[in-house]
């Protein structure tokens, strides 16, 4: 029987490789299950002094008034302590860093007000 040495050599190398691979895959697996529940977070940070309407816009992403992870959105309310006027601004959407500008929010032009601002996440 005539043996092709090149083929025989290739076969031998492949066989050795297969044996090596099968030995290298002596493995065992196990799983670890992980879970976490991210809860509501909201932070309100407003400028100390609001001088004009631009200040009340949250269009500067570097200085957001509200940061929240609430996927139902949040509201901002304020109370003019002197006049006891309350207004409510609602952002009913998930915004990781809101940059909206609500025209109804903030003191009137050319007036000086002492206001108390509140923010809270909305319930689903």
């Amino acid at each position, binding site marked *: 029987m005539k043996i092709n040495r090149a083929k025989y050599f290739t076969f031998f190398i492949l066989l050795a490789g297969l044996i090596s691979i099968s030995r290298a895959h002596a493995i065992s*697996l*196990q799983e670890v299950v*992980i879970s976490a529940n991210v809860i*509501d*977070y909201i932070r309100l940070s407003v400028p100390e002094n609001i001088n004009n309407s631009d200040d009340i816009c949250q269009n500067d992403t570097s200085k957001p008034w509200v940061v929240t*992870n609430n996927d139902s959105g949040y509201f901002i309310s304020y109370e003019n302590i002197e006049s006891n006027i309350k207004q409510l601004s609602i952002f009913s959407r998930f915004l990781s860093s809101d940059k909206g500008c609500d025209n109804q929010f903030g003191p009137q032009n050319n007036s000086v007000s002492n206001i108390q601002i509140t923010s809270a996440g909305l319930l689903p």
Partner: protein
Amino acid sequence: MKKYILYTLLILSLIVLPNHSKAVTDTVDLSTDVMEFISISVTQNDSIAFGNLTPGSPLTGSGGTRISVTTSSQFGYDLAISDSVTGSNSTLLHTNVTDRIADYAGTIGTPTIWSGTGLGASLYSGTGKAVKWGSGTTYNDALNKYAGIPENSTVIMEKSGYLANPDLSYIGWKVDVPNNQLTGSYAGSVTLTATAKIN
């Protein structure tokens, strides 16, 4: 006369019979090749429930995960970790099946003392623990160094030599999220792999 014949036969039988019970010996050769065996089991905390996570307040769960590896390999074994999740995302997937908590920024090549957010793992104890994992000794030790969990199986510990007994290792977990991480429940799984060394 009969008596002499009887004595003679008796003496002859004493002389001849031992030759009839002559022993012969041979040997049976026995051999076997013990194949490589390896098994891994999580013997403590195979489920890590971090509970409620407030952004900015990292959690470490209630204990570390204990891993037991038994192998017949004369060269030891490698312990690896993976989560099958591409990119910088971790295995922790929101119930909306879209949002994920990110991987911690430290890598298995260079774990770091906890700083920042994401899901990280730390090999805080083990007979083959490398120095790079920090000097912490408990699951929530501040000196632990953490790494994000890679998509593909990556070795976190190499153990050399034959081990007559099960070898124990311990992994601590830590998670934190940025304050814009969508609220809700996240879950996932991490795969630990033990591979016998062949040389």
